[in-house]
């Protein structure tokens, strides 16, 4: 939003994401920071950043699905898993290069998501959202019970590093850049989608699906599309994950992971792509600092005993999320918007 006194003079201007020079500068600086980050930070932080980037893709997808189209999605981890497995299988069996197998992994997840979304033909509201929980258990069941030669069954899949022109993405830094590029593209795409007619259709369907039907929006298709997009993002995230860890197993994609993704969306704020990114950053940062801090606390105060300290960490983490929900149920972005609004009105507060 513009500060007081700045007015949009054209429609392009009005629609642009970035409107003032200050914002441009900030964005460019941020991107530069992301690019030079591996050269400044230690490898642990780079690894964390890579992790965040992958999560960001998944959570941005969930944001479109949940924050825009209003469909709680408890299957995001499963969709991510489908992407990871598809990518893994394609890379191993057909030797596809990563720049093909990653998008195809996304597509596989998208198809899986779309199938669940299609139940919107009949099922509505909360019931629809909760059917995604079936995605989780189906995914788990299918992977473990389909022939081992397809997806490795209980053995999982082991991948070779991503390669291009003889360069392989083995080092932490190279993987980081791979993920950065993919995530940047996906996030930009997400901004595009939510600003287009599709994004509006999502919000409309979420607000009032009867009225949006009568506005010419194909409600079922829109809902299914929301799942499709959410799952596509999850799939891309899963594919990146597959190349990052280079081993894919069902227990890397559990319901509990989905719940954490949802927590990230909530903390960031529903209905904002930036919010999703903020949510990933905040939760992941807290989680990682606890993990890092924990052993040092135990080393400092051995009398406390490891398990107590660590259990307390869990409570902290849960408590922080709960606190967010109580004091800022609409997420960090909401608070930020209010701040911006008062800034815009400043110096005339009301």
């Amino acid at each position, binding site marked *: 939003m513009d500060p007081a006194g700045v007015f949009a003079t054209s*429609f*392009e201007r*009005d*629609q642009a994401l970035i409107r003032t020079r200050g914002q441009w500068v900030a964005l460019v600086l941020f991107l530069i920071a992301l690019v030079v980050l591996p050269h400044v930070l230690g490898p642990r932080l780079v690894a964390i950043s890579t992790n965040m980037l992958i999560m960001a893709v998944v959570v941005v997808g969930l944001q479109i699905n949940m924050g825009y189209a209003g469909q709680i999605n408890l299957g995001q981890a499963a969709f991510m898993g489908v992407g990871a497995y598809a990518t893994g299988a394609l890379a191993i069996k057909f030797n596809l290069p990563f720049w093909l197998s990653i998008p195809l992994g996304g597509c596989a997840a998208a198809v899986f998501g779309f199938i669940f979304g299609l139940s919107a033909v009949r099922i509505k509201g909360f019931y629809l959202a909760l059917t995604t929980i079936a995605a989780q258990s189906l995914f788990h069941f299918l992977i473990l019970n389909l022939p081992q030669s397809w997806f490795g069954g209980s053995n999982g899949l082991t991948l070779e590093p991503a390669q291009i022109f003889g360069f392989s993405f083995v080092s932490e830094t190279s993987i980081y850049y791979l993920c950065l590029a993919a995530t940047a593209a996906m996030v*930009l*795409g997400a*901004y*595009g*989608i939510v*600003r*287009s*007619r*599709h*994004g*509006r*259709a999502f*919000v*409309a369907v*979420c*607000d*009032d699906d*009867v*009225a*949006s*039907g*009568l*506005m*010419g*929006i*194909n*409600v079922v298709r829109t809902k299914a*599309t929301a799942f499709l*997009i959410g799952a596509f993002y999850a799939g891309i995230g899963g594919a990146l994950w597959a190349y990052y860890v280079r081993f894919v197993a069902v227990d890397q994609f559990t319901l509990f992971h989905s719940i954490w993704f949802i927590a990230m969306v909530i903390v960031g704020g529903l*209905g904002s792509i930036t919010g999703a990114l903020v949510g990933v950053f905040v939760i992941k940062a807290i989680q990682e600092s606890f993990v890092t801090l924990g052993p040092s606390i135990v080393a400092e105060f051995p009398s406390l005993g490891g398990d107590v300290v660590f259990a307390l960490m869990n409570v902290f983490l849960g408590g922080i999320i709960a606190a967010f929900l109580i004091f800022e149920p609409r997420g960090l972005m909401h608070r930020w918007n209010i701040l911006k609004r008062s800034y815009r009105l400043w110096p005339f507060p009301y």
Partner: protein
Amino acid sequence: MAFGGVVALDNVSMAVGADELLAVIGPNGAGKTSLMNCLSGFYRPQQGEVRFNGSLLSGMGVHHIVKAGLARTFQGTHIFSNMTVIENIMVGRHIHMKSSIPSAFFYFGPCRREEIRHREVVEEIIELLEIESIRHQPVGSLGYGLRKRVDLGRALAQEPSILLMDEPMAGMNTEEKEDLARFILDVREARRIPVVLVEHDMGVVMDLADRIVVLDFGCTIAEGTPLEIQQNPAVLKAYLGEGNR
């Protein structure tokens, strides 16, 4: 059209001519909204059919009927309250926009051009309805009257070839009704489309309508020009009441 034991519409036949403003009136619960719902495909009549320009509408999916050129406003508010005014009206443009998801993903290019093109149409409507100042406000925080105006704007954005309006004036004061009446007349003038209007404000109906259909308990009890209707004893008894001429 019946719901369980409740017969909402019973053998109603009517026709709207091109460029005609047809008002439908009737006491509460007469079936006016149900009629609108049948027309716009939201209800599927158990008997009978709806035709528009010769093509059969009944049985088509709701969003197909919209694409065929039928737009409507709602009784009460069925507006997307989490969206701003502009976004709401842009939703009305949905059927005219083509961009696919991949092109939306690569926003810059055709998708953006399309957005801007349609945005211009929307701005025209905003100007027409004089809601410039609330353009960027979320509709959820607007008063009832303004919402109804946005609702109309959304319908207009569909560039319909027939417009159904369900109690557009409800919740407005006289001045605003006057404005809205003006808008309706303007639209009719500019677009030359038939309008079906359901309204309880007799002043509005009598002044604007070319022809009036009166429903009661799902049946047509009268049909005619405003003057004829005003004199019709059945209508007086069922609807207007003495003293509400």
